[in-house]
């Protein structure tokens, strides 16, 4: 069922490469020029995230975590340095090509949910598939499936303002998974949620990761970071530590995301030059 979408994805040359290093940041600098003062958001960052890693990004407020996420999400461009996403140098891409990259390669989960208001949960989940030109019926079926897997099938026709924060974030996760992107980026996904809801959300990420997806989560909380298998710490736009988490917290097993995200077959990957 999902094979067909993958075929479509492969048609687009920009999206084709599949590298072991999903993310490679090369001397990345981001300077915000606010006129009067220049704020350094990121200061010569070098970071590589391999396919299938589950990474937590931590650091105090203002340390540049969101700045990094925005660049990794192709929402913003670095001032200096290069960002290779799946082997593609994003600096060379036009804004429409970046849209295509975001659409097929990245699933976003934001702290403030960022669902489109006055639009049903179902339509919100369909949105990335709409922009991927997936036929209406397929789109609706898959969106419904995803909502079922995040436990919100009954809420499909509800508007975002009729859902709780935790439910909204689950809709956002369903939406992030819609086009089966290899990379899931979540900037403080539990920042607006209570502990129980936070754990539920992290269990979902954990499941998604187990199925082969690469997940990067920004968080302030150690117990949230504990779910990941690598923790990168930031301070003043620099990486101050980067260590493995030998014993990631396990999900309670309540959530079975088996159908959420079809893992990519090893045999399907093509080794591309420049990776």
């Amino acid at each position, binding site marked *: 069922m999902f094979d067909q979408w993958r075929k479509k994805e492969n048609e687009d040359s920009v999206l084709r490469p599949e590298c072991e290093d999903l993310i490679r940041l090369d001397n990345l600098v981001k300077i915000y020029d606010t006129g009067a003062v220049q704020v350094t958001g990121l200061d010569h960052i070098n970071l590589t995230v391999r396919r299938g890693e589950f990474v937590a990004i931590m650091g105090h407020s203002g340390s540049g975590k969101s700045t990094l996420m925005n660049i990794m999400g192709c929402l913003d461009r670095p001032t200096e340095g290069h960002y290779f996403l799946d082997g593609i140098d994003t600096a060379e891409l036009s804004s429409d090509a970046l849209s295509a990259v*975001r659409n097929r390669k990245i699933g976003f989960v934001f702290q403030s949910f960022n669902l489109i208001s006055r639009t049903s949960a179902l339509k919100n989940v369909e949105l990335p598939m709409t922009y991927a030109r997936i036929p209406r019926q397929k789109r609706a079926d898959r969106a419904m499936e995803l909502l079922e897997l995040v436990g919100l099938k009954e809420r499909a026709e509800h508007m975002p303002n009729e859902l709780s924060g935790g439910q909204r974030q689950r809709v956002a996760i369903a939406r992030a998974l819609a086009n089966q992107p290899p990379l899931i980026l979540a900037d403080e996904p539990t920042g607006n949620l209570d502990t129980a809801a936070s754990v539920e959300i992290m269990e979902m990420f954990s499941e998604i990761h187990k199925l082969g997806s690469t997940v990067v989560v920004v968080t302030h909380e150690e117990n949230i970071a504990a779910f990941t298998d690598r923790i990168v710490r930031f301070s003043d736009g620099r990486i101050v530590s980067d260590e493995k988490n030998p014993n990631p917290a396990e999900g309670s097993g309540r959530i079975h995301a088996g159908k959420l995200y079809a893992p990519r077959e090893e045999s399907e990957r093509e080794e591309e030059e420049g990776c």
Partner: protein
Amino acid sequence: MLIENMAMAFHAIRANKLRSFLTMLGIIIGIGSVIAIVSIGDTMRTMFTDLYKDIGITQAYVSYGYWNDDWRQSDYFTLDELELIREAFGDEIAYIDSNASVSTEVHAGRMSMNFQFQGITERYMDVQPVNVIYGRYLNEGDLLGRRKNVVMSAESAEMLYGTENAVGRTFRTTIYGYTDEYTVIGVYKKEMSPFQRLMMGGSSDTGEAYIPETILTWPNDTFYYCHVFAADSADMTDFMNRLKAYIAKIKDRNPQDYYSNTAVEEMGSVDSVMGALSAAVGGIAAISLVVGGIGIMNIMLVSVTERTREIGIRKALGARTRDVLIQFLTESAILSACGGVIGVTLAVTLVTVLGMALSLSVVIRPAVIVLAVSFSAVVGLFFGIYPASKAAKADPIDALRYE
């Protein structure tokens, strides 16, 4: 994708019903007035065509030009000359008379009322058929004998005598200073729409009757107008030129000294009046469409600003510049087209109700409606370009950060 965009557009329009409606007002008024005036124009034109068909499309008048100052007694027409003209043109002339008519008060018993007497010959029946319900029409004997007989309309008879069958009844009236007794020899009925009645000036409290024209041309049988019905309406201009030339010849005048007026020309003037009216209303409509378009542009700019975050989200999820552009263009086109549809509905309702009140059959051309709605969509599209491109160009990260 188009269907999605349209669904989104309706969604957005419904989300702000009052605002959308107010935005549409300019378009509603513009399109509404265009449809109303075009329908009224079409209706009037059809009606005038019918009316002229009824009163005779081939009808014409000739007189010695009022602009000439060397007027002679011989410039009056005489009955003999009418006979000459008829003979000269033969079958080409269906009817000819002196265009005599008089408006006067009649008395029958204790009843008095105003009457309009039209002086005709017995052949008037050929060009203006009426339904003689009682008695008979005027005949040659009435004409030659200058008999004081009249054929009265059924309504007038009803008013004057309290019965439609007024054959044999008499009344007294004064024509050209001579008071005489006249006899009703026939009663006719003529089918007319209220509009025709209105246009004919036959207000309901004035009676109508046909009278031998020879009574009105009496005593010296001279008159100012020559009134003809051509047999064929195909080439009125040529007919009129030849008629004037012939009249000029027998009168020893120049053809260009004669004034003439045909029903066809009058119809043309109705058309030109309608044309001028249409142009004026069209101008107003154009202005209101431009104002409406600017209103749409304004509200779309507001909407784009309000929905900056939504645009950011869409872009983050993979919307390309084009996707956002088309989304907002669709929205403004649909907003405007909705205005067009409402305008058309209002105008059609108004014109239909008006038509019903005047018991007229209203002419509404579907092509005009389709054109009007399409045009309103184009207005929306045009004025949506700027707001939509503003939305489309938004930087995803700036849009997402927008508060």
